[in-house]
C-alpha cells in the first residue's frame, strides 16, 4: 500500500531556520489520495487495528492517545504556545492558514554576531568547542577513554592497510590484489539520488548515466583507465563483470582518462536486476554493487557501512554462457527507458 504524498493530505507544517521568516502553516489537501494511497497516520492506525485483533490490546489507544489528526495538529499549535504568540485562536489560524513569526527584535545586533568558528579563533578559552577539551582534537579524548584498544578506529585517525586478523582486507596493498587487483570506488551517483530516478529515460540517455550494451540493455557504467581496459581486452561499451568472492555485478565499460589506473569506478544505487541470487552464484545485471561490498561494519565499534571502496576484478562478460545458464532471468520483460519492470516482480497486481 503506497503512502500518500503531502499533496494528498491535510496537515500542519512549519518552516524553520529561516531567521526572521519562520512560519507555521496549514497545508491544504490539494488532491484526493491516488488509488489506494493512505497517509502514514492511517496506515499505522490500520496496522494497529489488525494487531489488536491478533491480541495486542490497547494498541490503537496507545497510538492515537484518543486524538484525531486535527486534534494532534492543534496539540502542536498549543504546545508551542502559538495562540499567545500569534494572537490567533486555533480556529482563526485554520482560517488564516499562515502565521509568520515576527523578526528578531535584536536583528541588527545579530548582524554583528561572529560567524562560524571566528570566536574560537580569536579566544579559544572564552569560546571553547564542544569537544571534551574544548579544543580541536587530533587525538580524540572520547575515543581514547571509551575505545582505547580499537585499532581500526584509533583515537588518532590514520591510514590502515588491514589484512588477516583485521575486520577488513580491501586495500591495494593487500595479498588479495593477486586475485582482485582493482579498487572499486563507488560514490553517490551523479544522475540520480541513490536508487531514486534510476528509472528516468531522459537521464539514462546521458553518456555517463548508462552504457547501452550490444544487447540493448542499459548497463551501469564501470569506469576503467585505458591501460587497465587494454590488459583485459576490454573496449569502451563492452558488457563487463565486476566481481570478487562475494559476487558479480555487470556493467558497461566506460574507458576513459577520467579515472586512475588501478581503479574501477561504478556509482552505487543502480537498481538490482538479479540473474542469480545463490546459492552457488550471486550475479546482478543491474549493477547494484552494494551486493559485493564488505558485509562487516567499519570496525567492531563503528557501525558504518563499507561500500565506497573494496577490491574487485573486472573482465569481459561471456553473455552467451550466462544466457544459456540462466534463461529465465533473460526471459523477463525489459524497458531500456526505466530498467526494471514492476510486473516482473510483483504478483497479484489488480487490473485497472
Amino acid at each position, binding site marked *: 500500500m503506497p503512502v500518500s504524498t503531502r499533496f494528498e493530505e491535510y496537515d500542519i507544517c512549519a518552516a524553520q531556520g529561516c531567521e526572521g521568516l519562520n512560519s507555521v502553516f496549514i497545508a491544504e489537501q490539494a488532491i484526493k489520495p491516488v488509488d489506494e494511497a493512505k497517509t502514514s497516520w492511517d496506515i499505522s492506525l490500520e496496522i494497529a487495528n489488525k494487531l489488536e485483533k491478533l491480541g495486542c490490546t490497547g494498541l490503537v489507544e496507545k497510538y492515537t492517545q484518543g486524538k484525531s489528526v486535527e486534534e494532534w495538529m492543534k496539540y502542536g499549535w498549543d504546545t508551542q504556545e502559538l495562540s499567545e504568540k500569534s494572537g490567533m485562536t486555533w480556529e482563526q489560524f485554520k482560517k488564516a492558514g499562515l502565521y509568520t513569526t515576527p523578526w528578531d527584535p535584536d536583528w541588527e545586533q545579530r548582524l554583528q554576531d561572529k560567524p562560524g568558528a571566528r570566536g574560537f579563533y580569536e579566544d579559544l578559552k572564552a569560546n571553547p568547542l564542544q569537544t571534551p577539551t574544548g579544543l580541536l582534537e587530533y587525538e580524540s579524548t572520547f575515543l581514547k577513554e571509551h575505545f582505547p584498544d580499537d585499532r581500526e578506529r584509533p583515537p588518532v585517525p590514520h591510514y590502515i592497510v588491514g589484512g588477516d586478523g583485521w575486520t577488513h582486507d580491501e586495500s591495494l596493498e593487500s595479498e588479495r590484489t593477486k586475485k582482485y587487483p582493482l579498487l572499486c570506488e563507488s560514490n553517490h551517483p551523479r544522475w540520480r539520488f541513490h536508487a531514486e530516478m534510476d528509472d528516468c*529515460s*531522459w*537521464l539514462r*540517455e*546521458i*553518456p*555517463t548515466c548508462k552504457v547501452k550494451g550490444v544487447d540493448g540493455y542499459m548497463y551501469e557504467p564501470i569506469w576503467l*583507465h585505458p591501460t587497465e581496459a587494454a590488459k583485459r581486452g576490454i573496449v569502451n561499451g563492452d558488457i563487463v563483470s565486476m566481481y570478487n568472492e562475494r559476487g558479480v555485478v555487470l556493467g558497461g565499460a566506460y574507458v*576513459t*582518462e*577520467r*579515472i*586512475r*589506473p588501478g581503479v574501477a569506478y561504478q556509482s552505487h544505487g543502480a537498481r538490482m536486476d538479479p540473474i542469480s541470487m545463490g546459492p552457488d552464484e550471486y550475479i546482478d545485471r543491474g549493477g547494484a554493487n552494494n551486493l559485493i561490498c564488505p558485509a562487516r561494519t567499519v570496525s567492531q565499534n563503528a557501525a558504518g557501512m563499507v561500500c565506497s571502496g573494496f577490491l574487485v576484478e573486472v573482465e569481459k562478460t561471456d553473455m552467451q554462457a550466462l544466457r544459456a545458464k540462466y534463461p529465465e532471468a533473460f526471459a523477463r520483460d525489459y524497458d*531500456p*527507458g526505466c530498467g526494471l519492470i514492476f510486473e516482473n516482480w510483483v504478483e497479484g497486481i489488480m487490473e485497472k
Partner: protein
Amino acid sequence: MKVFLIDVALCMGCYACQIACKDEHCGNDWMPYAKPQPDTGQFWGKINEYVRGNIPQVKMSYVFEPCHHCDDAPCILACLVEGGIYRRHDGLVIIDPKKCTGCKSCIDACPYGRIYFNEELNLAQKCTGCAHLLDREWGFKEPRCVDACAPEALKFGEESELSDLISQAEILHPEYGLSPRVYYLNLPKKFIAGTVYSPVDDEVVIGATCTLTGEGDTFTQTTNDWGDFWFDGLKVGTYSLKIETGGKTKTISNISTEKDVGLGDIALDY
C-alpha cells in the same frame, strides 16, 4: 534577429538544458512549429562531451549544441517542398511539420547533424528555438534550455544587444560557411600541462620557470605549489617546452597538440 550565445567556460555539464528541452518538447505538440519529440533518441539541444588530456592532467568540456539556425541554412535549400523549411522574421529556422513529407533530404544536407527523424510521425524534427514560447504574450520569452541554465552559460537574445560578446565569440565549423546563429565563447582549445618534480629531493619543484614556444607564440608560467604548470588555449601544432630552475634546465621538444597533452610527472635532474 535572435542569436544563441553559449559560454563553454561557464558550463559545468549539469545537462539541465538537454533535459529541459525534452520536458518542453517530448509529448507536447507545439504546432505550427513542432510535433512532439519522441521520449528518447532525439536531442534537439544536445550536450557534447569532450574528455581532454590524459591522467593526471584531464579536463572535461561540455559544448551545448542546439540547431544552428544558419543564415545560409542548407536544409532550407535541400527541402523538396515549397516552404517546407522556412526562416522566421527573427531568424529561427523551422521545419513545417504540416508540409514535411519525411524525405530526409534536410537530414542529409545538415553538416552539423542537428536534424532527427521521427519514424512514427514520418517527420524530420529539430530545435525550433522554442518559437512557441517566443510568440507568447506573457511569461518568459526565451528557449527552455536557456531558462534552465543555472550558471547562465546559455544566453539568447537580439543580435544587436549581444554584439559586444558576439565580437569575441566563435562559431562551430566556420569551414562550413553557413553563417550560423549560435555563437560560442571559450570553446576548448588545446592544452599542455604537467607536474615538475625532483627525484633527488623526492618533492615537487615550486616556482620553476616554464617557457612554451610554438606556432609563433611564446608563453611563460612558473610552477605552482603543487609543481604544476598548465598552458591552455593553445593552437593545434607543435610546441617546445623549456623548464628552468636554479641553473637546471630541461627541454621537451616536438610536443604535438593534435590532442590535449598531459605530460604527467616530469623529473628535473639536480
